[in-house]
């Protein structure tokens, strides 16, 4: 049967998720530290069992140490709690090139609150493109869209199109194969007669943003797949952690 110290170290290593050789090095180092600590506490008159628990308490929560032992920015970082950081980051909070999580920040961000260059989520903030329930950004296609180029159920933008559109230029009567038709629900500062060429030139972007909605049938499954992947990865990580040791010493 494993000692309490070993089980504690097991748990650190579960979260550290290191290759076996490196894990063994860490194990040896932590073992040395903890054993010496127990010996010192015992010498000071503390009963051995109490000394062991005190050594573990002072050593810190395995979850915190384990996660800190992970590389600073690995290719893939999946966490069940805290902030995942990696090229692909998956966790309750995620920061990465591709970030997926409840709160995701990345070049490509997917999540409840997503912020990035290209963002998809319940609340999406995208510098280039945002798609979601509520979207803000450069080019936005969302239930409620606020952006430079905005398309949505309610759209506010420099150039806007949608159910209720407000903008400098809402191209009333704008027609395209995939376009939404705009009628009395639009509020536009400029009319087709006096619209500046710059705003006119942004119209093709409306078409692109609108296409995302038109091709909803493709976008939505991709979004759902991402959510499924996020949940699957987090479930797998949780399962891996539980399988290694269900003895929760950390508070």
């Amino acid at each position, binding site marked *: 049967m494993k000692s309490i110290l070993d089980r504690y170290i097991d748990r650190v290593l579960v979260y550290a998720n290191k290759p076996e050789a490196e894990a063994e090095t860490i194990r040896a*180092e932590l073992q040395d530290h903890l054993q010496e600590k127990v010996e010192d506490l015992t010498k000071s008159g503390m009963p051995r069992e109490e000394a062991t628990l005190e050594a573990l308490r002072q050593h810190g929560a395995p979850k*915190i140490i384990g996660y800190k032992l992970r590389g600073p920015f690995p290719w893939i970082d999946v966490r069940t709690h805290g902030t995942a950081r990696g090229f692909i980051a998956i966790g309750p909070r995620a920061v990465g090139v591709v970030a997926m999580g409840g709160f995701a920040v990345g070049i490509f961000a997917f999540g409840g609150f997503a912020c990035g260059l290209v963002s998809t989520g319940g609340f999406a903030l995208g510098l280039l493109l945002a798609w979601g329930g509520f979207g803000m950004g450069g080019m936005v296609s969302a239930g409620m869209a606020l952006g430079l180029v905005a398309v949505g159920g309610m759209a506010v933008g420099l150039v806007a199109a949608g159910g209720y559109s407000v903008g400098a230029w809402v191209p009333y009567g704008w027609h395209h194969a995939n376009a939404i038709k705009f009628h009395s629900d639009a509020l536009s500062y400029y009319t087709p007669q006096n619209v500046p060429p710059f705003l006119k030139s942004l119209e093709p972007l409306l078409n692109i943003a609108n296409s995302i909605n038109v091709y909803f049938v493709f976008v939505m499954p991709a979004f759902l797949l991402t959510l499924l992947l996020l949940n699957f990865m987090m479930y797998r990580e949780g399962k891996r952690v539980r399988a290694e040791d269900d003895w929760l010493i950390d508070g």
Partner: protein
Amino acid sequence: MKLSKKTLDGNMDTLLLAVLSEGPSYGYQMVQDLNAKAPGVLKTGEGTIYPVLHRLEERELIQSSWRTGETGRKRRYYRITPKGKKALADNRLQWAALKSVMTTVLGGNPAPESFQPTTHHGVTS
């Protein structure tokens, strides 16, 4: 006055480099040294020094080697590299400059006794 976790995390590199500048040491001994000089500095857990040590080693600021300790157990010793010494010297200068700025701006109110500057390489001063 308790130092915030953020403050400690951001400066643990420098603290450990300072400890190692006195000579090679191992994790537990470094914890003892730190606790002796700045009690409470490792309140978030003694084990949190290892991720920092490993990062320092990756950055080649310290080197490690395994030796058999007095107890017969294998023990990992760390020592500072020339690159680490330079980094520590740079950090000292940064701290001295920051201290000067803060003292000037804040009016030189002394820090609480538990966090008075130590003579330990001027790192916490």
